[in-house]
């Protein structure tokens, strides 16, 4: 993570003095964007950079569902399974994704191209069902749109 330190230094400017501890989440997010996951040495280096106890960073990593400690597929497909999405076809969406990718939720394809996850409410209930690919919301999913979405992703 050391190459990100100039970015972290810049980020600090809008925080109040003495709020170093606040940097844990934004730094971890940036590290994960950069590497794809948070590695052991990232934790050690971040502990040193921010000056918080290592346990605080470990706890954050285990508490928040978006942080990862291991690499995943190039395309992270996350399907919402909460109420409004389930009422508009989410169960079919998840089945179709499992069938099409040949994996169950929580798994990654052997070629490392796709990881499939189910997630709770994404705040997109009016345009349900919703699927997120990496960071991007894809709303109003139908079987045809879902096929087109997956097939349209670059290798």
């Amino acid at each position: 993570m050391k190459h990100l330190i100039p970015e972290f230094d810049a980020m600090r400017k809008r925080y109040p003095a003495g709020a170093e501890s606040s940097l844990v989440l934004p730094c971890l997010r940036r590290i994960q964007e950069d590497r794809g996951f948070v590695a052991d040495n990232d934790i050690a280096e971040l502990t040193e950079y921010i000056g918080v106890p290592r346990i605080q960073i470990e706890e954050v990593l285990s508490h928040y569902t978006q942080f990862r400690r291991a690499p995943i597929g190039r395309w992270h497909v996350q399907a919402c399974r909460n109420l409004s999405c389930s009422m508009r076809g989410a169960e079919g969406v998840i089945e179709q994704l499992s069938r099409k990718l040949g994996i169950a939720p929580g798994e990654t394809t052997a070629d490392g191209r796709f990881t499939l996850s189910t997630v709770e409410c994404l705040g997109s209930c009016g345009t349900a069902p919703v699927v997120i690919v990496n960071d991007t919301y894809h709303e109003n999913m139908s079987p045809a749109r879902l096929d087109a979405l997956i097939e349209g992703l670059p290798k």
Partner: protein
Amino acid sequence: MTGRKLLMTFPVTATSHLLADYRARGGYATLEKVLRQMRPEEVTKEVTTSGILGHGGAGFPAGRKWGVIKLNDGQPHYLCANADEGEPGTFKDRWILENAPHLLLESMLITAYALQVRNAFVYIRGEFDLPYRRLAAAVEEAYAAGWFGERILGTIFSCDIVIYRGAGSYVCGEASALITSIEGKKGYPRNRPPRLTVRGLYQQPTVINNVETLANVTGIVAHGAEAFRKVGTAKSPGTQLVSISGHVQRPGVYEVEYGYPLAKFIYEDCGGVLGGGKLKCIVPGGISTKVLTAAEIEPLTYDHASLAGAGSGVGSGGMVVIAEGTCMVRLLQILLRFYHHESCGQCTPCREGMGWMHRIIDRIVAGEGRPEDIEQLIRISKANDGTTICGMGDAAGYATVGIIAKYRDEFEYFIEHKRSRLDGRLEVAIP
């Protein structure tokens, strides 16, 4: 039409979220008036007099929260906008973040001035991508225009803002967990007292308001508290952004004036049940509010007193329409799976209770339910009520007890016949 509008007052276009368009709509003029002509306590007085209730779920009067902050007490104060919007069925704050980010920022600056806040935060859920990008771009526009930073408009008022992104945790929408998260820690709620307005972020007095609550501040200060009070009802002044989804013909975000007829809103403004079906019930304000049957909503108006009188609430404004033919047992299974997944694990009744309830409902849906399971679900719900630090344990119980009280026959049928009387249906056929 759903009554008078306070927020959705402009056409949404490809550029309506940008600073130039906001300025053309009169944006930042109220901030300028406040900084040049008003004292901080005058701003707080307007907001208090307006009677605006919190729009995040609890409906606590915003002015009373602000009133706890003591000016000139020599301590730093903090302001956080709660943009964690994670209550299932709720997507209304997204409308503000995507379409009116500068309205939120101007309101936060006015609030920061009123409460002597030097550093403000927006806590936004980690999954929100477009809302984050829109808001982040607006923050940069506002900094470049001199609305944030040192000595704003040449006055002695200075304010910085940070958009703090969550990372996937429902409980961080709870105010004390939210500040713990901004402190860079796991999002654990904490006991009160002390209230967060006494000891909040970094142990300093902190006001946390929902995005929509804050977005109303500019209008309240611009037009005065009395003008605001003329909209809505005496006990619920103003409007509510309602996000409506589920089995509804026209889902989306609607601005509803408090006091508007509830049935008219659902059947006329939102087009009624998807595919022309019949209404079974609604979740009025996020899944933690109790369901209301089609018959129950008929006499109701959309405001706090009316919904509370029916045993439910405005909650987070996240309304879910449920059509006749939907299996309430499987519906509750989705809710309990969610609560189990999101329990932070800090308090025993919630940590154990959510998992226990989830296992029971899974067992019922698998056809292995026991006759005592219904009472057991109710018993665990009651054991959670008021015994945990935050309201999540209570909320899961309200949802559970609410559904079982009104649809107990479906649970009894499922347990006795080992199958759903309604074929486990969650979706409705669209002709």
